[in-house]
């Protein structure tokens, strides 16, 4: 079985080379049979990758510890599901998984476009096969998941999967993130194909609209799930730390978001054609860069895989992508340039343009901050880091500007907006914004950024509600529908527009959740049973500490009675666990704080059992009161719902 897996990857590598070769010859000679064969070999690469993945998964499930990877990431006691998810727990397995998802996409692209886009497809297939080739080189020669174990005696049991990774959210966070990451390779392939073939009309943009939205959605969901997992499992009470690897996933999301907006201009107005090329290429470069950052160890991150020899190969691949793209864009610059010009600052186009400028600037700031230790070491010789305060200082004002544009942009008309329509569209939302601003001021909020965010959120919500209201009113008048039916109709008649609005509403909610962060309270105490402490109007009593031995860990369970205004409010049971507590080697035992959270719309009470002194029975406890954090998750759901609505195929288009 082991041999099969490695052999499958070998043959796939050969097929990738063959596919690229066939397409190149087809493009020179024009013999259509070559193209058809190339299509089949392209499908063949993916098929072999599927088989190789199945071989690795079945070995993981069967606990075949003669494979190094299986022995490193699973053990006999690893639950079934997590034997499966071990596929992406380590370096080589996750590379194969990347390749697997890429192959799923490649298969869909080839099959879906068998009879379409004849000028583009040879190039699209070649580009996808080249990306596959790169990852095949990796898994064949640098990090082969089928490597046999380097041990003389047979291994009885593997090392097991990190207990932190044994969590449902964590099981789905990487695949969803990968779906997004890898998904951008499809629009990238179409962009390069358009450049190669010089078919620069709106066709390539239309062909990738849904792919782009899908990749963008998956990446966004992956990021949110990662934050959610960190919040539920990691026990520091936050969801975003501006860690290099988090930033690596945020950067392509930012440029991707810019792209999702700016392709609308190209579709409707045939403008920004050079810019769109630059954006999608940048996004894909950032995807590869992110994959590289996670695996090269050039910046110290808590997420990173061990340092490995993958780094240089990734850099060469990055350079290749950038060189080819830049060359092609320069070559086609004349044809790409748009005839049309911007007409007014107060227009939809200009709104989109500024949205793009801010998104890309924000991405640049994140990039700079993430790589600053590397840059400063190269330039000044000393390693200097900039932490979360830097990122917040930059991202918060830019985020607020973006939020404002979310409200303004959709209400501006194409080309030029008249003063009359400005007044008509904006007067009510502006009043709503001012009222929310005043109310929050009266409630005692005095810091500038939260006040602005709340006020602007009110304004944006106002614009969104107005948009829905207008759409519904027109239908009610015209077709005599009831308002609810009209509501459903306007969405289904114009999915991308209203789906987009729902996404915007989700973003507003997330910003409200971010604002809540400014009002969080927390404290840490050393407590004995019976002790009572106070935080944010709650009084917290440690009523009991119990001990319990469970199948693969030992647990201390603290019972906390939470009271508010003298009345019983809720109980929380945070735990301190020691995983693998029976292991004779103390270094193999793994402490873990299992947090307990009381959630509500207004605030979460987040409890962390820090440590216990088994002699004196004193425990350390941290309680955080996290305001409005649930809005972030609800906003995430709206983002998902809105994008799915926008993605949903209408009867006419394919």
């Amino acid at each position, binding site marked *: 079985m082991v041999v099969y897996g490695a052999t499958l990857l070998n043959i796939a590598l050969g097929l990738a080379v063959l596919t690229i070769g066939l397409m190149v010859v087809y493009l020179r000679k024009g013999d259509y049979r070559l193209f058809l064969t190339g299509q089949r070999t392209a499908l063949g690469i993916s098929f072999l990758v599927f088989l190789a993945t199945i071989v690795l998964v079945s070995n993981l499930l069967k606990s075949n510890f003669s494979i190094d990877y299986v022995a490193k990431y699973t053990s006999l006691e690893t639950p079934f599901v997590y034997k499966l998810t071990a596929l992406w727990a380590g370096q080589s397995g996750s590379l194969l998984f990347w390749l697997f998802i890429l192959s799923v996409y490649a298969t869909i692209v080839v099959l879906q476009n068998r009879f379409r886009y004849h000028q583009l497809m040879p190039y699209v297939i070649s580009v996808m096969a080249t990306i596959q080739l790169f990852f095949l080189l990796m898994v064949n020669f640098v990090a082969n998941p089928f490597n046999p174990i380097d041990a003389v005696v047979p291994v009885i049991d593997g090392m097991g999967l990190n207990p932190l*990774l044994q969590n449902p959210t964590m099981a789905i966070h990487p695949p969803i993130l990968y779906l997004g990451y890898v998904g951008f390779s499809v629009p990238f392939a179409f962009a390069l194909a358009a450049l190669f073939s010089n078919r620069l009309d709106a066709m390539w943009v239309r062909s990738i609209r849904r792919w782009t939205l899908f990749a963008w959605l998956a990446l966004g969901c992956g990021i949110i799930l990662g934050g959610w997992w960190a919040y539920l499992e990691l026990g*520091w009470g936050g969801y975003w*730390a501006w860690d290099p690897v988090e930033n690596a996933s945020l950067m392509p999301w930012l440029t991707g978001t810019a792209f999702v907006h700016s392709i609308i201009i190209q579709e409707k107005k045939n403008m920004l054609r050079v810019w769109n090329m630059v954006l999608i290429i940048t996004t894909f470069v950032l995807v590869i860069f992110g994959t590289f950052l996670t695996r090269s160890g050039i910046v110290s991150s808590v997420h990173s895989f061990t340092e490995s020899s993958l780094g240089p190969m990734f850099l060469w691949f990055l350079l290749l992508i950038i060189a080819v793209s830049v060359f092609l864009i320069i070559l086609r610059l004349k044809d790409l340039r748009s005839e049309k010009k911007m007409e007014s*600052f107060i227009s939809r186009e200009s709104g989109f343009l500024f949205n793009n400028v801010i998104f890309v600037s924000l991405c640049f700031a994140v990039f700079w901050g993430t790589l600053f230790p590397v840059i400063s070491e190269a330039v000044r010789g000393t390693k200097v880091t900039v*932490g979360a305060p830097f990122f*917040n200082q930059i991202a918060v004002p830019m985020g607020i500007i973006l939020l404002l544009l979310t409200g303004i942009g959709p209400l501006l008309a194409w080309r030029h907006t008249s003063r009359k329509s400005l007044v008509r569209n904006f007067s009510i939302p502006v009043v709503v914004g001012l009222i929310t601003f005043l109310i929050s001021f009266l409630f005692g909020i005095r810091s500038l950024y939260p006040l602005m965010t709340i006020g602007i959120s009110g304004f944006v919500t106002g614009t969104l509600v107005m948009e829905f209201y207008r759409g519904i009113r027109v239908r009610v008048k015209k077709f005599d529908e009831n308002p609810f039916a009209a509501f459903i109709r306007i969405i289904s008649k114009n999915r991308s527009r209203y789906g987009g609005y729902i996404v915007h509403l989700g973003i507003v909610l997330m910003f409200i959740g971010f604002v809540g962060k400014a009002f969080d309270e927390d404290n840490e105490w050393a407590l004995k049973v019976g002790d009572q402490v106070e935080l944010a109007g709650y009084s917290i009593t440690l009523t009991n500490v119990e001990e319990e031995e469970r199948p693969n860990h030992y647990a201390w369970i603290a019972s906390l009675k939470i009271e508010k205004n003298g009345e019983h409010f809720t109980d929380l049971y945070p735990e301190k666990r020691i995983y693998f507590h029976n292991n004779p080697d103390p270094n193999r035992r*793994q402490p873990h704080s299992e947090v307990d959270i009381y959630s509500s719309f207004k605030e979460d009470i987040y409890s962390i059992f820090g440590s216990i002194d088994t*002699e004196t029975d004193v425990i350390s406890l941290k309680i955080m009161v996290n305001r409005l954090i649930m809005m972030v998750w609800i906003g995430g759901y709206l983002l998902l719902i809105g994008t799915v609505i926008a993605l949903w195929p209408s009867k006419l288009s394919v």
Partner: protein
Amino acid sequence: MNKKFTVVIVAVVLLVVFWVAMGVERNELPYATIGELENYQGKLDGKRFRLGGNVQEGSIVRDKTNPLLVEFIIEQGEETLPVNYHKITPDMFKDGVEVIVEGEFVNGTFQADNLMTKCASRYEGDIRQTQMTETKL
């Protein structure tokens, strides 16, 4: 019109670059080695640093009655440095692990307010266990 747009966009971009540069200036934190601290002879108090190293075997002392008071020593090759930390320690924090500490010198001792651990040996995928310094929006 396109010229006007170019001017405005260039202005926005310059503003961002300026803002980022200022942000770096204000928030930069030297990532020093323990050896490099000697260069600051006598001027350490009140200076903020980010330091890396491994927790010296057997150096972790936790107060019996107040587990929030922790002292330990980090080592980097031959150099060592005692560290005080007054918060809940991350789960991965134990003898021998690689840690990154942030904090400042108070009367000559390093008072860390942020302790991050890396687990290098056991798992390939390292997992964050940090007590983050509160960063308010």
